[in-house]
């Protein structure tokens, strides 16, 4: 079944997944329209309204620098989308290529999968921490690091799925009819991987949010001045007793977004080739 059709089918059936999709759409709109939607400059200090309660004009209140929380949250949507899609892109392209090539070319596979094994000997968060230690704190580096962490998982998953596909008759037929390697890989194998990889992508998108928030919290993720939901939590956590809303809003935003993405992945997973269902690393 084609991917768009299956998405339509799934969403007709699953109200929760539809809710998830709607929420992600809102986050997307906030990310694109942030300069228009944000009532204040997310970086502007206002020492006269430090830690003010939610109300008018600061709907979500202000942080300890007097910055408008709502504006920071809206700009935070940008970071969420950027980190999610950036790391998904890296993980799927790098991991997907490594996995496919390794399964298809057996000898190359021995070498590449060994390297993947070595990287997977490092627990995900530890690998991210170590890499961040070596790099400067920046948005790009955070995306790259999280992308690399999930590229290893993706490589192993795609490796397994490609091996299964390789045993299929149609791939044999393509090889026997003299198709070139590139053609077998990209015209016969890849199309069958698109749906499961889309499912995997939604879960990676969700994991990446949590991973990025954890890095922010540890002071090893995005630079502190960048308005991200993780940074908002990290910076204001000592004021939690004086201004609990400062943690509730960004926390709820992270939870809602991760939950939504998980719901979407879960619903989509129901519709993929059952052979691949257990390969997916997800919730």
């Amino acid at each position, binding site marked *: 079944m084609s991917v768009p059709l299956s998405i339509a089918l799934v969403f007709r059936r699953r109200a*929760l997944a539809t809710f998830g999709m709607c929420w992600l759409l809102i986050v997307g709109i906030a990310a694109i329209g942030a300069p228009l939607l944000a009532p204040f400059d997310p970086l502007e200090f206002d020492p006269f309204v430090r830690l003010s309660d939610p109300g008018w004009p600061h709907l979500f209140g202000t942080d300890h620098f007097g910055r408008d929380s709502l504006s920071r949250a809206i700009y935070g949507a940008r970071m969420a989308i950027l980190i999610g899609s950036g790391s998904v892109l890296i993980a799927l392209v790098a991991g997907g290529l490594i996995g496919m090539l390794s399964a298809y070319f057996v000898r190359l596979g021995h070498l590449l999968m*060994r*390297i993947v*094994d*070595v990287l997977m*000997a*490092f*627990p*995900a*968060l*530890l690998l991210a*921490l*170590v890499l961040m*230690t*070596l790099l400067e704190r920046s948005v790009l580096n955070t995306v790259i690091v999280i992308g690399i962490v999930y590229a290893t998982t993706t490589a192993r998953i795609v490796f397994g799925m490609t091996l299964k596909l390789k045993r299929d008759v149609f791939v044999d037929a393509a090889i026997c009819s003299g198709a070139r390697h590139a053609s077998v890989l990209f015209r016969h194998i890849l199309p069958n991987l698109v749906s499961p990889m889309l499912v995997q992508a939604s879960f990676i998108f*969700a994991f990446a949010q*949590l991973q990025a*928030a*954890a890095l922010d*919290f*540890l*002071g*090893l993720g995005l630079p502190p001045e960048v308005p991200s939901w*993780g940074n908002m*939590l990290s910076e204001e*956590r000592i004021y*939690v*007793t004086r201004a*609990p809303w400062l*943690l509730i809003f960004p*926390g709820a935003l*992270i*939870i809602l977004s*991760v*939950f939504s993405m*998980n*719901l979407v992945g*879960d619903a989509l997973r129901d519709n993929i080739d059952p052979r691949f269902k*257990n390969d997916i690393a997800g*919730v």
Partner: protein
Amino acid sequence: MLNYALNRVLTLVPTLLAASFLVFMFIHLIPGDPASILLGDTATPEEVAELSRELGLDEPLWTQYVLWLGNVLQGDLGTSVFFREPVLSVIAGGAETSILLATMTMFWIVVFGVPIGIISATRHGSWVDQATSGGAMLFASVPTFWLGLYLILIFSVGLGWFPSSGFPSLADEGGVSNLRYLVLPSLTLAAPNAALIIRLIRASMLDVSREDHVRTARAKGLHPVRVAIKHVFRNALIAVSAAFGFTFAALVSEAVVTETVFSLPGIGRLVVQSILRRDYPVIQGVILIIVVFYMAINLLVDLAYASLDPRVSLK
């Protein structure tokens, strides 16, 4: 079984060597001279020169690696810049907290995860199932530090039931009752992991329950609960046991965030603090130990897997 175990250990050796090489390279990837990095900012030029000689820094990289590995195998992981103590003893200082925290977390994961997962699977499609599996997914979507902060807010600050931070050793005053310091941290760390286990048990049990042999079991007239436990859960356990292992192995590093929230003197917090203090020998040592531990647990998981599934050939 012994042959199988030996075989698995032997195949792990190359991966372990490669991983240790990466850990070794860590110091060399940091911009600057490794000897000065290892000694910190306060070292004199003489000290730096001496350590350079010791590490064989003018030798080729692989000779340095062999030297380093030789030291590591003798238990010498270098000296902490910050503590001025051998790295191994610094790490050992955090071991008690980390191991107790991981064990207690595993306890919650089993106590909450297994029964809820089984109930969710056996009541598949009912509102109980929808609530538990949906709730589990929600819990898997919560950042641990956020959950930890709110648990502190409610149960320490608000109700005063549990201490909010720190952990005195069990050997200190208070003895075993000091475990109460670990209740909130372990619950925090357990929440997302138990959620994943619930989802996994549910999915695996649903897979198994569609197999033919479950119908055979029902045809014997067995009680549904017996079918669910002895035939469905037991078979699902093969897949689930692997997840238990991986979860436990990952707990020590996942605890980084939790230990920071609750200011626990564990290995996880040591990593973060060492990174912030630029105490590179400690960072390197901790990474190495966590990686070795992680691989050892994964090996045990493999062996457990083989013993749970008679179809896995032990040759």
